[in-house]
């Protein structure tokens, strides 16, 4: 192909490109577009409920995790026991309450011994 110069090759390529298809716009395409526009306009008149903006997961998760860790630490150390109601800190089970109900076993035992003697 060396016998042809660049200009000839460019001219030939330009001629070839002119053979490419010139696509015709489908019939009614513009009307369909305008119908879509009308539809979009009608839809835009509907007030949409806006979803609340999403809070980043870490923004919620981090304080919760910190709070949980602090709670576990203070709970284990017993620092907060004075501020807690008895039913939560287990005063009853610890045997420090005057209202502790008696089991009644001692009485039964002594009664049984009395019976034997």
């Amino acid at each position: 192909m060396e016998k042809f110069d660049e200009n000839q090759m460019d001219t030939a390529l330009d001629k070839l490109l002119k053979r490419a298809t010139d696509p015709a716009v489908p019939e009614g395409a513009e009307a369909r577009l305008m119908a879509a526009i009308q539809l979009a306009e009608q839809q835009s008149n509907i007030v949409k409920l806006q979803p609340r903006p999403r809070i980043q997961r870490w923004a919620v998760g981090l304080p919760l995790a910190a709070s949980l860790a602090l709670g576990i630490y203070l709970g284990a150390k017993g620092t907060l026991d004075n501020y807690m109601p008895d039913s939560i800190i287990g005063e009853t089970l610890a045997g420090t309450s005057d209202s502790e109900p008696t089991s009644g076993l001692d009485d039964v035992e002594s009664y049984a011994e009395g019976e034997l003697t």
Partner: protein
Amino acid sequence: MPTASDANLLLASARRDTAAFAELVSRYYRPVYRMVWRMMNGNPETEDVAQEAFVKLWQNPAQIREAKALKGWLMRVASNLAIDRLRRKPHVDIDAIAEVADPRQNTGAELDEKAATGRVDQAIARLPERQKLALTLVYFEGMSNISAASVMDISVDAIESLLTRGRRTLRESLAEDWRGLLDELSSKAG
């Protein structure tokens, strides 16, 4: 509204004037459709993509700051949509392009011409998308290198480079057709 400027039509469109927008559509739909057709290799979804570009314009006409940039804006939006669509559905039957493409009915002696057209379309379809877009904007839509560079958001040097590479690729893939034409030109010159 045949004499209204693009600027006035855009302003009216921003006030939701559908008649004004219809005039813009009649001015720019055809070049946008042709460019999308070329980028999508004659894919039947061409109309959807061209339509989507205009719907985006309708939704916010005020985003076009200068009316003279309207065609370039439409071309850019439509080409991006076309490329996105193709990337999502890349399996385009390039060999079927000639069948989909040419609505003209060719018969008899025109068969050779039709076959040549098909080969040119297929060669263009096989170009990398940026080369194809540059070639489409400049050769088929008659845009200047500066305007085409603006559409593609690249420098003029870059678009010239794309055009050169695109032409070289086409020369290689159309070697047979091209040689015949060169011989024909050469014999006419002689």
